[in-house]
């Protein structure tokens, strides 16, 4: 399992290629990449800023990934999470799961994304032409996570 929190831009295709090279015989690889959008709810986004708590953030994401791995019996997980100043079009988060069968791979990526949305110690601020604002998880995010946790 690999969890990386990084200030540098990363290339999801290259990360996925490197991850799957190590596990060619596994059967199923599912991935998700979230990108910085150029607009949120019609409001243009200039720069997205994501703050971490160094050390703590990495360990907490590792704990969430361990939890998913235990629940779903995946063979390997990869999480890359960008922090710092992120521009539209850049990748924010990549989650990849290798498993023997496709259902486990899909479920692992989806569940880990749900966990990250609500439980990863990261704080987002969007800067646009009309100022900055901190983002907090919505009731919808919490509901989705609760549902995901039950379903699997």
């Amino acid at each position, binding site marked *: 399992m690999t969890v990386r929190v990084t200030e540098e831009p990363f290339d999801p295709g290259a990360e996925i290629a490197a991850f799957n090279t190590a596990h060619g015989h596994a059967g199923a690889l599912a991935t998700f990449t979230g990108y910085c959008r150029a607009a949120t709810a019609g409001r243009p986004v200039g720069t997205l800023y994501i703050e971490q*708590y160094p050390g703590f953030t990495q360990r907490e994401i590792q704990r969430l990934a361990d939890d998913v791995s235990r629940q779903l019996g995946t063979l390997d997980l990869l999480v890359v999470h960008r922090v710092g100043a992120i521009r539209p079009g850049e990748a924010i*988060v990549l989650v990849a799961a290798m498993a023997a069968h496709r259902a486990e791979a899909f479920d692992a990526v989806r569940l880990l994304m749900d966990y990250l*949305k609500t439980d*990863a110690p990261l704080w987002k601020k969007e800067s646009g032409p009309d100022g900055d604002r901190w983002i907090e998880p919505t009731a919808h995010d919490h509901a989705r996570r609760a549902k995901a946790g039950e379903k699997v």
Partner: protein
Amino acid sequence: MARLVFLGRFREIANPALAQVTLPGGVRTLAGLKDWLAEAEPALGKALDSARTQIAVNQVLVRDPSHPIVHDDEIAFLPPMSGG
């Protein structure tokens, strides 16, 4: 000296001098620390005063307000997370 860490929007409100601070002798628990902050920095105290604020002591989340604070502790205040 205690090290106080304010994350996200708390960091923007907190006085940077709080990063390294000598706490008064009477501040011996997390609850005591919150009371002291609310008095010294009312805007910050108000922002922290939510059931959704989490506190980590030496990088471990702690929920018990009576948790003791000792010399050199790193105490972090975390607003609701918005990762992913």
